[in-house]
Each structure stands twice: as structure tokens, then as C-alpha cells.
């Protein structure tokens, strides 16, 4: 007998007699248990989902999660130089010595004389796997800062040390405006889109306005005027779209994408380490009747505090809002 027939014979007749079996009634019992188990599982799943939603909402509102040790709790502005130690385990491990603290430092821009910056320097993620934790830290910090800003009517900037490439810095500024809050995002090619999305979500939760600004690299073949003009156009577009009542989440994404595309087109993606970067920022927003006046300044990361250019954009809130005035002040 060949092996295959031996196998057939053995499998067919080699097994011992089966024991008594529970049969159809046993199956019915198992089916009932299965239905109960699945029902309980569904209830637990719904409960967990609800808890997760509450948790996320709370985190977005800055109500939960780790707090900054020494974080001011009363209606007093943190003084310049105020240091808030990050909770243990809150920040990713850092290569910087002592850099993982949150500190309140003088505003780097002369225009922001009444503001404070909250700077955090979490560890640079060393791989894409670490990005989510890094992102969560930044999001949490943003939530906390927004909460503080909302309570105290002061301005904060969260300066998060970069993405995978060191010079890619993401800066968020919360600007006090007479009639509403503005969270400003300095969007940076290649790293900014997720931040803008998160900020957009936060803004919707808190009912804030989100304005991304552009960020471009000075390049040998491109004069600063070109960058200024492009950035001014972009900012004007952002503001205009904002007052037309479009969903912020949609135009932020589009705007950031446009910024990315423009940057990639004009200067390439070679955002080399240590090169000067141009930072576009809305320094001031005031209201004048039904108009909102935005002052936009342009600096570089190497020469913070020095404004190369200021541009004024006036947005009038009317039935058909539009940029009604643009004025470039200086360009050095």
C-alpha cells in the first residue's frame, strides 16, 4: 500500500471512538451565550467610545491630561522669565539639556510688547514612529496655551522645535483681537499640514479663528520681494476666505497646500540646516468700525525682532467681504 492510501486509511480508522457529544441542544446553549457575549461587547465598545470622545474633547479643551507644574491658575499673566516645568513623562526625551521646560520669555517681536511666548522644546522625533507622540505633546501644549490665553486675554506663542528636519520650526501664536481670538499658525512646507489640521480642529472646538501664514526660504535666485509679494497674496487670500464664512477646516487645508506648493515651486524643498528662513506673521489685528486691520510682518528666523516688511490688510465685514485695502510699508 502506498503512503497516500495508508494516510487515508489511518485518518479514517485510526482515531479512537468519539466521546458523548452535547449535540444540537449544546449548540443552542452556545449560541445564546454568544449572543449575550456579543451584546455585552457592543455595550462595552459603545461605553469605551463615549469615554474616548469625552477624553479627546477634554484634551482639546485643555481640561485634562498633564499640566505644567507651576502653571498659573489665577487671572494673572505669567511674568517674563516664568518657567513652568513639564510634567515628568510629558515631554519626549530630549537631546537638549533643560530644554524640555516650558518657559515664558519676552516676545521676540517688537510689536508683541505685551505678549509672552510659551516655548516648548520636545525632543526631535528620530523616526516617523515617534511623530505621533511628538504631535500629541504639541497638541496638548497648544490646548493648554489656548486655555490660558482664553482665560487671561494674553498672547502666547508655542514654539515647537521642529519636525524631522531641525530647522522646520512650527510657531503658533494666539493673538488677542478685539472681537475674537485668532490662532495664528506659521505654516512650514513639509511639516505644517498636520499642525494646521489640528489647529483647525482646536479652533472649531474653541470657536476661534485660525489663520495660517506663509513661510518661505530666502533663496539665491529669488529676491525677497518675490517672497514678500507671494506671502502677502497668500495672507490676503486667507483673510478674505475667512470673512466669507467658508469652513475654516477646508480653507486651511487648501491654504497650507497652496503654501506648500508655492514654496516647493519657488525655492524647492531643500530646506537646508541653518539657512535663514522668512517668517510671515500677523502682528496686529484691530478693528475700526466694521473693518478689521491686519498688520503683517516679515522676519527671518536668524533676525527675529527685525521686521523687513510690514503690510497692512484691511478686511471689511460687509455683505460681500473683501480685502479693501493693501498697503506695503517697508521692505528692507
Amino acid at each position, binding site marked *: 500500500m502506498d503512503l497516500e492510501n495508508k494516510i487515508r486509511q489511518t485518518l*479514517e480508522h485510526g482515531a479512537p471512538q468519539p466521546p458523548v457529544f*452535547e449535540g444540537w441542544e449544546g449548540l443552542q446553549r452556545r449560541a445564546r451565550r454568544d449572543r449575550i457575549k456579543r451584546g455585552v461587547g457592543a455595550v462595552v465598545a459603545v461605553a469605551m467610545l463615549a469615554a474616548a470622545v469625552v477624553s479627546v474633547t477634554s484634551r482639546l479643551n485643555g481640561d485634562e491630561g498633564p499640566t505644567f507644574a507651576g502653571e498659573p491658575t489665577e487671572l494673572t499673566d505669567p511674568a517674563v522669565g516664568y518657567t513652568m516645568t513639564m510634567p515628568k513623562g510629558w515631554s519626549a526625551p530630549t537631546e537638549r539639556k533643560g530644554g524640555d521646560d516650558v518657559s515664558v520669555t519676552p516676545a521676540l517681536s517688537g510689536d508683541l510688547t505685551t505678549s509672552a511666548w510659551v516655548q516648548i522644546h520636545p525632543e526631535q522625533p528620530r523616526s516617523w514612529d515617534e511623530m505621533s507622540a511628538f504631535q500629541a505633546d504639541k497638541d496638548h501644549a497648544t490646548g493648554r496655551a489656548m486655555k490660558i490665553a482664553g482665560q487671561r486675554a494674553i498672547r502666547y506663542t508655542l514654539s515647537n522645535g521642529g519636525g524631522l528636519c531641525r530647522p522646520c520650526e512650527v510657531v503658533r501664536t494666539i493673538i488677542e483681537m478685539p472681537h475674537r481670538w485668532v490662532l495664528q499658525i506659521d505654516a512650514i512646507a513639509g511639516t505644517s499640514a498636520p499642525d494646521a489640521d489640528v489647529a483647525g480642529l482646536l479652533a472649531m472646538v474653541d470657536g476661534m479663528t485660525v489663520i495660517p501664514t506663509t513661510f518661505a526660504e530666502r533663496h539665491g535666485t529669488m529676491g525677497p520681494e518675490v517672497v514678500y509679494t507671494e506671502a502677502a497674496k497668500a495672507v490676503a487670500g486667507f483673510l478674505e476666505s475667512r470673512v466669507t464664512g467658508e469652513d475654516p477646516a477646508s480653507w486651511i487645508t487648501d491654504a497650507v497646500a497652496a503654501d506648500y506648493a508655492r514654496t516647493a515651486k519657488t525655492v524647492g524643498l531643500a530646506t537646508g540646516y541653518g539657512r535663514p528662513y522668512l517668517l510671515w506673521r500677523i502682528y496686529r489685528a484691530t478693528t475700526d468700525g466694521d473693518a478689521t486691520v491686519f498688520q503683517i510682518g516679515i522676519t527671518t528666523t536668524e533676525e527675529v525682532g527685525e521686521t523687513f516688511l510690514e503690510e497692512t490688510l484691511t478686511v471689511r465685514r460687509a455683505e460681500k467681504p473683501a480685502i479693501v485695502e493693501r498697503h506695503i510699508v517697508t521692505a528692507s
Partner: protein
Amino acid sequence: MRTRARASHLAGGTPLTDEDFKAFYEADIDRLRAFAYRLTGDWADADDLAQDAMVRTMRAWRRIKERPQVYVRAVMVNLHRSLLRRAGTEARHLLSMARSEEVAPASDDDSAVLWSEIQRLPLRQREAIVLHYYEDLPQNEVAHILGCPPGTVNSLVYRGLARLRERLSLDEVAAGSGA
């Protein structure tokens, strides 16, 4: 000798009513238990697997597209794999020890050795061998149950046979030298 006709009990379209399921259950459960035993080598595990696979099949009864006999075997193979994954290395070892103790084929010594060697085959090879030689299922249905291409079924069966040949010849050598 079993023939292809042996698989006739598995034939038929997909029934749609609960009564049909009960009829299917009554007709197939013993064979399913036996199949499970040939995978696990333990009657308690085999009965659990067979009943659990039937519960899941009953749940999906009206959605089943393939022959229910194939569907329920595919469910059972997956349940068995999940069970082994959860059991972990130590439990698997204990399981195999218990299995080798329980298995006591009533036939001759050669069959006992062969049975034991089949139980020691790697899981996927054992699944393919049992489905092919015991359930007598065509290659495409074995492939469906195992979740692999038909060519892989051939390969699994071929490698399983080769391993059995090798082990049986080693046993014969050992028996000969022992005598």
C-alpha cells in the same frame, strides 16, 4: 477506500432557512468533529471547535455564499489557528504532549506511527493533508478553507508527504537497528 463520492455529503446549495441549518447541522456535525479531532488530536478541543464553528456559521447562515460545508471548515481552521496563537508556546507544547498521550489508534503499529507523525506535522501541512485525504475535498476548496492559492495546497501536501516519508523511513531504520 474512500472516493470522491465520499464528499457527496458536503454537496448542495446554500440553504436559507433555519430549518435548513438544523438539517445541515445534523448531517455534518459528526464529520466536522472528526475533522477537528484530526487537527487537534484532542476530543474536547475538537468538540469545542466544531460547536463554535457551527455557532458562527449559524450567525452567518443567510449570508453564506459558498457551500456551508466549506464555510464551516474555513471558520474552524481559523478558530483553531487563533486558539493556537492564544495558547502560546508553552500551552502548545502541553497540548502536543497531551495529544500524543491521548492518541491511541486501534489499528496496527504502522498506523499508530503514521497517525502520530501526521499529528506532528506543521499545522498548515497537517491541515492540507487532512482536508485532502480525509475530507477528500478538491484542491480549490482546500485552498479556500486554508486561505491560500491552490498551488500552495499542492506544495503543502507535497511537503507533508515528503516529511512523512522521511520520518517513517527513519523509524524503520531505528526499529531495524533496535531489533
